[in-house]
């Protein structure tokens, strides 16, 4: 799959253009804090330690204690305090050490943060970000993809990027957005992929999907680590004469219906790949949208390739079985292409 960065964590000095996914995130925070003194970072071990994955390394040295706040192990306090800060015009970035722990603050996020603007005109411009996803043998409590709990919550925005360019540009956009934005960082990608990032300031618009590979036989929709899996499968499909169009959703809420519909109306077939579990995953929602808005355009069933409906198991053999992979995507796509 993606290129491995073997030198990560060892004084990596990438060229100005090629940086890791993790470095893209660090740069986005660094540059936003440099640009705007209302931007703060708050979370567990984000300061002295630089974050469990070193995404905030160097931020404390540069911006000091008041702007890089190490907190107690209190996710609700982190989210609640950030929300309160946003009411006075600050733009805090909250780090969940692993995104699995975001559910410890579920009430604060879904009831307090998400509803404020609708109910009493109180926007909460804040970002909640953290490492998510499996494939690194983190076990059932360090591998979660909890995005759909929040996609189901009006008032939030949910981003799940797949490339360094998008990670940096979307995180910057999230910091500047006037709404609470959840930003999922697939930890499998942190040091495994590198990508080109322009030298200057840029943002990537929230709510816009992107076509990663053009094709005409079927559409594959995906995001985050599964984006790369889907591209790998598309390469294999091409060798068999099946041209898959691969779309990276990038933002799950709001969903870019236009790009999805445009592609499916062209290819007439749709396969959805996500690392989240099957039941209640975004694939079901997309399927409903396609039935509502593109029913006549469909020439085959909607196919889902997802994780199993189980917790994320620990043993490599079990986790591999649990997760989707390029083989599974390839097989499902080949089957779909026959219609």
């Amino acid at each position, binding site marked *: 799959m993606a290129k491995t960065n073997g030198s990560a*964590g*060892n*004084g990596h000095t990438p060229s100005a253009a090629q940086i890791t996914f993790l*470095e893209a995130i*660090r740069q986005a925070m*660094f540059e936003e804090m*440099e640009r705007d*003194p*209302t931007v*703060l970072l708050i979370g567990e071990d984000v*300061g*002295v330690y*630089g974050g469990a994955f*070193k995404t905030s*390394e*160097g*931020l*404390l*040295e*540069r*911006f*000091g*204690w*008041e*702007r890089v*706040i190490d*907190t*107690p192990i*209190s996710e*609700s*306090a*982190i989210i*609640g*305090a950030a*929300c*309160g*800060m*946003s*009411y*006075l*015009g*600050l733009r*805090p970035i909250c780090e969940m050490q692993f995104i699995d722990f975001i559910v410890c603050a579920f*009430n*604060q996020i879904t*009831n*307090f943060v998400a509803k*404020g*603007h*609708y*109910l*009493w*005109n*109180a*926007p909460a*411009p804040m970002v909640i970000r953290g490492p998510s996803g499996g494939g690194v043998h983190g076990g059932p409590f360090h591998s979660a993809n909890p995005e759909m709990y929040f996609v189901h919550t009006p*008032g939030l*925005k949910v981003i799940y990027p797949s490339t360094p360019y998008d990670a940096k540009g979307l995180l910057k956009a999230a910091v500047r957005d*006037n*709404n609470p934005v959840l930003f999922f960082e697939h930890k499998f990608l942190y040091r495994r992929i590198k990508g080109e990032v322009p030298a200057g300031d840029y943002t990537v618009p929230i709510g816009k999907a992107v076509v990663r590979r053009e094709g005409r036989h079927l559409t594959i929709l995906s995001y985050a680590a599964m984006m790369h899996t889907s591209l790998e499968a598309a390469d294999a499909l091409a060798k068999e004469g099946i041209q898959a169009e691969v779309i990276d959703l990038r933002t799950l809420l709001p969903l870019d219906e236009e790009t999805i519909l445009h592609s499916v109306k062209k290819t007439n077939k749709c396969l959805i790949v996500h690392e989240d579990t099957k039941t209640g995953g975004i694939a079901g929602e997309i399927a409903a949208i396609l039935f509502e808005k593109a029913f006549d355009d469909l020439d085959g069933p909607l196919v889902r390739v997802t994780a199993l409906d189980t917790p994320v198991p620990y043993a490599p053999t079990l986790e591999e079985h649990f997760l989707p992979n390029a083989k599974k995507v390839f097989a499902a796509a080949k089957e779909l292409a026959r219609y």
Partner: protein
Amino acid sequence: MKKELTPPQHLDLYYYMRLNRAVEDTMVKLFRQNKIVGGLYSSLGQEAISVGTAYALEKKDWIAPMIRNIGALLVKGVPPRDIFMQHMAKYDSPTKGKDGTSHFGDLDNLHIVSPISMLGDLIPVMTGVALAGRYLGQEIVAMTWIGDGGSSTGVFHEGLNFAATQKAPFVLILENNLWAYSTPVRKQVPLENLADRAKAYGIESYIVEGNDVVAVYSTAKEAVERARAGEGPILIEAKTFRRLGHAQHDPAEYVPKEMRAYWEARDPIALYEKFLTAEKLLDAKGKREIEEKLDSLLAAEREFAEKSPMPPAELAEEGVYCTGDECHKIRAKWERPISEVTPPKSSVKAVWTVAGFGSGKGSGGANAPIHFGETQAAPPKPARESNNGRAGKATAKPPGKSVLKKTAKAATASSSRKARR
């Protein structure tokens, strides 16, 4: 009762308590006329707490009231019509009918954060408000309220603990009204005094007779000024009693008659009237004038509220997101030089580094800092037992006069560590 307040301030407190009760009396009438859409909660008998604590704040300070803190909203300057319309789900209400009761706020002018129904959530939120105020150099204090029942929530602990670690200028009023719906306080908290919870966070606390408005005010005033001065968060337990049920539907038959009788004899407004009369601050004429003022004010406010229409149905679809640059109008109000929080001034240096540790790009090379000298190298010497140990036993039943006690001061709170800011 103390007399540090000026005569006009004394009358202010009296007026706001009477207003608080009159607003709620009016809402009971509206409720019985089926004009209130949802539930109706009462602070009958607890008015001294809402009014006395909020009166201790400055205009720039922030509050987040709970369901029984109508009095705090009134002191902050919310017009009664807003409270009526909220309960009646009217279009002109602060939330335009999207939420009811005291669930509304005002970020721009009055500095009020809206509560939600989940108890305790305001504690970390107001901690964040306090921290933001300090960060911006505004010298504000944030205040919120919690009940005896709400103090059992996890977020109470998370919030207060975080506030304590940050020495946030935050004052938490714990209204111990002895009942959490039908559950008596003993089943909520196995403590005689809920103020004892402060010890767990190494913060200051007070216990006050909640039906004595002057005692409440004096205690709150002291706490607010100490918090503002950088002493960290302060917890005040106000002992009181919930005179009515959890809400209008609840006759509270589970409350022992003797308990009710005891507290009904200690009505905060009647107590204060007695005091004001004895001190010759209020006479029959003055009282009549206040009552006439309240009558005409509330009649007008109620009329306005009743005339307001219900929101148009389509409004349900609007406002989930803040869209466009114009939506977010909150701009940080800096009361300190921004240069203090931006490099190079904001930058901190590590005390030591370890070769090969970290080594990220941001660290500027192969050696990442691992220690910033924020923690003492050796444990501090045990501090002198100064104010440690509570003075005397607190009384479960409030006596006639106010009780004001400070709990143990954390030995390390102000000694060796520099305050973070």
